[in-house]
């Protein structure tokens, strides 16, 4: 099951953009003008809400929100 709706809800707390502009292909740093600090906060929120851990070494590979969705789906409840 996709986690994108939950990811989108959290992202919208950081980015002042319409919800319709957020897709799997969205790069939060490039497309939403978020900073790496915002990204760390978003990941921390998702870890807390979904009970998943995203190690520092994995963050570099999570370029788009689709990448983040795929990672969380594969590791939630693990």
């Amino acid at each position, binding site marked *: 099951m996709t986690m994108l709706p939950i990811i989108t809800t959290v992202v919208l707390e950081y980015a002042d953009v319409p919800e319709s502009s957020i897709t799997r292909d969205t790069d939060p740093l490039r497309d939403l*003008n978020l900073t790496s*600090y915002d*990204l*760390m906060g978003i990941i*921390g929120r998702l*870890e807390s809400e979904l009970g998943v851990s995203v190690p*520092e070494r994995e963050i*570099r590979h999570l370029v788009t929100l689709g990448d983040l969705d795929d990672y969380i789906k594969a590791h939630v409840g693990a």
Partner: protein
Amino acid sequence: MTVVVARSPGEASASEQREAARRLLGLGLQRAFGISPTEFEVERNAFGKPRLCGRPDVHFSIAHCGRAVAVLVAGQPVGVDVETVRCRDSSVAARCFDASERSRIDAAVDPDREFFRYWTLKESYVKALGCGLYYPLNRIHIDVSPEGEPESDKPRTRFRLVEAFPAVVIALCWLGRGERTTQSDPVYVEW
């Protein structure tokens, strides 16, 4: 080393930030290297760090937030970061700061501002390295002292904080590579 900074009169949009950053970069390149502010092209390395086309001797870094823009231009690798001071996120602190750093932040007079001093200093370091999020922030230890420059556990690396604007922290980092670096005071320009 040339530092150019500008404070936004209000909360600047993303496009306003980018436009101001481009203008400040032109000013910095002109001051530091005599490069015409209308005749330069920027490309990015594999990690997204911008560099000047055809001028490998020119190093620069750009940072912007809703309140300010900062540009650092030098003849050696440099990094700059700027953040608006807001409520600190404890999950970010747990991920990126060690126990000593967290303890110093919690004990500070203004813990939120102290948090963003540490954050921007670490970010300025990874920007100087040119690898962005590819370098975990918990791999560098920073000591912010009320007196003197911030220090780290990395050799030939120097830092400076610029805190001329309310609610904004700007951090500068330059990689010495054994060279003597001439610091210059920030140039403050109109937004």
